[in-house]
Structures are given as structure tokens and as C-alpha cells.
């Protein structure tokens, strides 16, 4: 009978395995000749070829005395893997940083070295660095890339139906209604089976125009605003109003389903993040992108720019000099132009201009013109307790879409849950 408990034990073994994996790769700190090998721990499994074929060779050509090992862990296991590696003293030399609260917890636990004096870190604005600052206000990670969110649209369908790109919410509703009335296409490729994207790609995309970007976001953090304030309730209402333009059975449609619907040319508009520029154009459609419409004509426009990846220095690293050389190089435009060119949909966070060869990525970057940028609402400080506002928003938005919960009830539940643990930093 005892052996039937093996699945449970296997999970524990898996955790042990993570630690062992750390030992085998993190421990090779010793110099071989004059070459120092440093490891780079990260969650971008899908970018391994890009880094190993393009980015790392460019760095190693400039710094022949340093070799870099790319050491990815799947994004779902990344936090646990890094935590167990660092706590057993076998962490990689440079570590990819999650934005905001996870990273702040890691900084508090002493995982990273302060990078205030790092060469090149002054090339970033405070806004770019904000996602990886400690409670002391110092930078702990070099910003690598950010992502944007907007609305992809099928240019052929817009042309066929004689539609214009909407700039206000009223025009947006008219466009969606016109597509619905025509009946040939689904107006909005959106399903609510995946909670995260309702939050990141819909609420945090349309919402900033209602809660005035940073005003609303920082207001929640310092306690001067509540999610039950009209600007937030209106934003939830605007998201909820999209229901009538979504495909039948949207309650069970996943993120992958909606992408399929859009790329097959059966839907006109799809809210999504910039990381999908390659996927959205994969079937050869002529795709454009427009910014989340403003509430009223003449309003200031806001756009979500979410810091996605930063890189920090392991406080226990035995090769700090080599690691700092790599970090300084990652802060340079040399690196940024290689990276954003090879991974369309991810955007440089440096102050120096970078051009994008992918047309749709350039179109996305152009949305930043005249817009005030703001990261996702939930991730800074508001997700550092239980329940995290982040996960809670996913689940609550799903009840808005699937169970018909009203915007008022949804926001008041979120605020009540937040109040149960959060003390405003004001």
C-alpha cells in the first residue's frame, strides 16, 4: 500500500531535483584558464536559440575572457527553482527578475546586489527602473524588455465593411456593433476561459484611460483611491460591456482559441499583448494594431507598458566582475538593438531610440507616441499579500464574464479582499 503514495513523494522528489539541478550547473564557478564562465538563469525557455545564436556570441566576441551559459527554467517553475537554488547557495550568477512584488520579496531576502553604481544603469529612466527597485529606491536589475498591449485588427475586414479605426469608446462600440450587425464575422476574438488575459489584455489595456494611468494606479497604492471609485467601476463596466460582441460560448474559449479565430480571419478585432505579433501574422493576414480608445474625444491617451524582464546580480555569485561586465553590456544599446530585432513584440526600455524591423512591432511602438505609459494595475505592492490582487482580479473578472457578476460587485469584492491585508504605503 505504501508505494501508492508515490505520486505525492514524487512531487517532493521533484523539488529535491530542482536543488540538484542547481548544484550541477550553478556550481561550476572555477576558472578554466583565463576564461570565466557565468550562468544566466531565466524563464525564457522559448528564447534559448536566440540568446545562444545571436546575443551571447555578440557579447563573447566583445569580451573573449567571459563565457555565458544560458540556463532557462519553465516560467511556471521559475520562482520555486530560483528560490531553492539561491537558498542552497547554488544560484546562477545573473538572474532574470520578475517585475514588482516577487522581485521586491527577493530583494528583501538578500538575493541581489544593489546596482546603483553599475556602468550603464543611468541610461534608464526612473520609470523604466521602477519595476525592479527595492524599498530603498535603488535599482537591483537591468531592464531588458517591456511588453505593450493593444487591439489587433484584420485590415481586410475593416476595408470590406468600410470601418475606421476607433479612437473613443463610443466609436469602438459602434465599430463592434457594425461588425455584429453585418453578421459575417465575430466582432471580438475574446474568450474568458483564461482569467489572466482578461486582466492583462483587456482590463489593464482599456482601464488606464478610465483611471488615468499612473494617477489611478499610484492612488490605489497610497490609499487615496479605492477600486470602488467610479473610474474603476466604469472601467470594469466597459470590460463587461464587451460580452455582447464575443463569440458564442466564449465562457469556455481559451487564449489559444481566440488566436485561432483571429488568424483564420473569422474575427475582426482581438485584444492581445505585443508578444503575439508573430503569432497574429503567422497565417499571412494583413494585421494592424490600434491603441485602447479614450473615454471621450480629446482625453489624454494612456497605454499599458509592462516591464517584463530585468536581469540582476546574485549576491552570492563568485564571478561578480564578469557578471557586472555582462550586465553593463545588457544595459547598452548594442544589446537592445540585437534583442528587440530578434524578438519582435518585446520593446527596449532604454532611453536611446531603437528601430524595429518587424512592421507590426514598429506599429506597436508608434502607439507610445503621445500616450502616457503605465504598467499593469495589480502588480506593484498590491499583490504582495494574500489574496494577491493580481490572481484575485483574474478570478473575479471571470465571474463578471461567466456568472454575470456586476462591475459594482466585482470591484467591491476586490477592494474588500485587498483591505483584508493591505495597508496603504502613503
Amino acid at each position: 500500500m505504501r508505494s501508492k503514495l508515490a505520486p505525492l513523494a514524487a512531487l517532493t522528489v521533484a523539488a529535491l531535483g530542482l536543488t540538484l539541478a542547481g548544484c550541477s550547473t550553478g556550481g561550476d564557478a572555477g576558472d578554466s584558464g583565463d576564461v570565466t564562465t557565468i550562468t544566466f538563469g531565466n524563464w525564457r525557455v522559448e528564447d534559448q536559440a536566440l540568446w545562444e545564436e545571436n546575443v551571447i556570441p555578440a557579447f563573447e566576441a566583445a569580451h573573449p575572457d567571459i563565457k555565458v551559459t544560458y540556463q532557462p527554467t519553465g516560467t511556471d517553475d521559475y520562482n520555486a527553482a530560483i528560490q531553492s537554488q539561491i537558498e542552497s547557495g547554488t544560484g546562477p550568477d545573473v538572474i532574470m527578475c520578475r517585475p514588482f512584488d516577487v522581485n521586491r520579496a527577493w530583494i528583501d531576502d538578500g538575493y541581489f546586489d544593489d546596482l546603483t553604481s553599475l556602468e550603464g544603469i543611468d541610461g534608464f529612466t526612473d520609470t523604466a527602473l521602477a519595476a525592479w527597485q527595492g524599498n530603498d529606491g535603488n535599482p537591483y536589475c537591468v531592464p531588458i524588455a517591456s511588453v505593450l498591449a493593444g487591439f489587433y485588427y484584420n485590415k481586410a475586414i475593416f476595408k470590406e465593411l468600410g470601418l475606421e479605426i476607433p479612437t473613443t469608446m463610443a466609436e469602438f462600440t459602434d465599430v463592434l456593433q457594425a461588425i455584429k450587425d453585418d453578421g459575417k464575422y465575430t466582432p471580438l476574438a475574446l474568450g474568458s476561459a483564461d482569467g489572466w488575459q482578461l486582466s492583462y489584455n483587456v482590463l489593464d489595456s482599456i482601464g488606464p484611460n478610465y483611471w488615468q494611468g499612473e494617477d489611478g494606479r499610484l492612488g490605489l497604492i497610497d490609499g487615496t483611491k479605492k477600486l470602488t471609485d467610479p473610474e474603476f467601476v466604469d472601467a470594469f463596466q466597459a470590460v463587461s460591456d464587451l460580452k455582447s460582441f464575443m463569440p458564442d460560448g466564449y465562457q469556455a474559449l481559451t487564449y489559444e482559441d481566440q488566436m485561432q479565430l483571429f488568424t483564420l480571419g473569422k474575427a475582426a478585432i482581438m485584444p492581445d499583448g505585443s508578444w503575439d505579433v508573430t503569432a497574429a501574422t503567422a497565417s499571412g493576414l494583413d494585421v494592424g494594431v490600434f491603441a485602447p480608445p479614450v473615454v471621450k474625444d480629446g482625453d489624454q491617451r494612456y497605454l499599458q507598458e509592462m516591464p517584463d524582464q530585468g536581469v540582476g546580480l546574485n549576491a552570492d555569485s563568485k564571478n561578480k566582475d564578469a557578471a557586472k561586465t555582462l550586465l553593463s553590456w545588457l544595459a547598452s544599446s548594442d544589446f537592445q538593438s540585437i534583442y528587440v530585432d530578434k524578438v519582435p513584440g518585446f520593446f527596449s526600455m532604454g532611453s536611446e531610440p531603437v528601430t524595429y524591423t518587424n512592421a507590426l512591432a514598429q506599429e506597436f511602438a508608434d502607439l507610445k507616441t503621445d500616450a502616457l505609459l503605465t504598467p499593469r494595475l495589480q502588480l506593484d505592492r498590491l499583490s504582495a499579500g494574500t489574496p494577491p490582487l493580481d490572481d484575485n482580479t483574474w478570478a473575479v473578472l471571470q465571474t463578471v464574464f461567466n456568472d454575470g457578476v456586476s462591475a459594482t460587485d466585482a470591484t467591491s469584492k476586490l477592494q474588500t479582499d485587498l483591505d483584508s491585508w493591505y495597508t496603504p504605503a502613503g
Partner: protein
Amino acid sequence: MIRTGTRYRLLAIFVLPALLVYAGFSVYPLLSSVALSFFDSDNGASTFTGFGNYVYLFTDPYVSERFWNALRNSVEFFAIHLVVELPIGLLMAALLTSNSIRKSRGVYRTLLFIPATLSVVIVGFLWRLIINPLWGLVGFPLLGDATTALPTISLMSVWQYIGIPMIFLFTALIAIPDDILEASRIDGARAWATFWQIKFPLILPQFGLIAILTYIWTFNGFDIVYALNGSAPGPNYSTDILGTMFYRTFFGSSGQVADTDLGATIASVVFFIILVTTAAYFVVLQRRLKTYEL
């Protein structure tokens, strides 16, 4: 004749390799996981907190709500397996032993067992396409409705693993000697009476065993839910079972720090629930089932 002392020494030598592997890779991690649940390593250092994590798990309003929800869902997940998978498995096993399909028995047995050999990811993907409201057979969003989502996933799992109780009970059924069945026929018993009064009582111990195995498998369940709905299984946690809750807590998510201590606490609670129920089953029920010498 080998002396008793030597016999035990020999026995120990034969058992030792398996025992070492079992202790090193099964017992030790299990115990260290239980040990981990008594520590709190929130601020870098690991401190002993006794039952602190357990108190937190059962008293924090949000975390305990998630836990009871996951436990309820696990019970439902198991109940659906119990009332659907086992009877159908029994029926299939009984049909397989029937003489009318004696020639094609192998074909049926293989066909019915095939799903159990597929990867859950494939099973989840197939069924998701079949019941997809956009391009599938069913217009109703089965996986999007909080009341139908968990039964739907449970039935997918039943579909996949139906072959296991079937094969298990089938082998028990064919082990029944023909002379007993012949005797019942001579006494005038029809097929129905033969099955319920002769065959079923004879395989009852195996039936009980597969029921408790199903209980263990479903309470340790994780993969099908994770493959379909990820680690925060929606809608609104209606398909969250103990396995996914453990995973989410232990490994964290992109926006959540991994809490290995609380994860270990959940794992220990699950272990304890399974241990107690299984032990109770064996003490109270399985011992009373009559086994017949055939």
C-alpha cells in the same frame, strides 16, 4: 536446513537494495516534506514554527476558503470516478468475459484500454476540441460554467482511465474456475443470477481494492486539470483540486512568490487525509470482505 539467524541475514541482503532505493527516494523526501511544513522561511532564514503553517492554512479566511474549496472539488472528482468509472469498468469486464465475443475479445480489450496509454495532455486537448463551442460538437460552454466544468473534466478522466478497472476486474473474473460456473448452470442459474450471486461475490475483494486505488489516484490527481486549466483552474477556482492548489502554492506563479513551506503543509495534509482514509478502509471494510479459496 539454514539456521534462523543466517536466514534473516540472507533475507536482509536480498531486501536491502530495494529498501535503500525506497528509503532514499520515497521515504526520505516524504518525511523531509513533512518536516518542511513545520518551518517558515519567509524572510530568508528558516525558522521553526511548529503547527504555525497548519493553523494559517485552516484559519486564514482566504487561504482556508481555497483549501476547503479544493477539498470539496477533490471529493467530487473522486465521487464521479467512483459512480461512473467503476460500474462501467465492471460492465465492460463482464461483457468481455461473455462467450459471445470470445473470438474478438482481444480486439475489444485493446481498444478499451488504449485511452489509458495516451498522455493526459493529448486527452485534454482532444476533448477540449470536441467540446469547443466554436468548432466542436457542443454549443454549451461546458468548461466555462462553474457547475459543469468539474464534472466535465472528471468525465474526461473517466474516459481515459476506464480501461484500468476493466482490466483489473477482467483478470479477476477469468480467474474464476469454470467448474463453479458450470455447477451454477446445472443448478439452473441464468446469466444474471450467475453474475451477481457467483461471480461478483468472488471478485468483491478486487472491486474494493480498485475502489480504494481510485480514491488514492483521484486525491493525488493533478495532471488533467493542469493540462486543461492551468494552475489557477477556473472559472473562479471551480475546478481547483488539492493537487493544483499544492502546485500553485509550492511553485508560485509569475506574480506570486513560491511558498514552499505552505506547499509542503498542503502536501502533508493531503498525505494525512489519504493515509487515514485508506487505513480506515482496510481496517473497517476490506478485512470483512470474504475471500474464497478457489
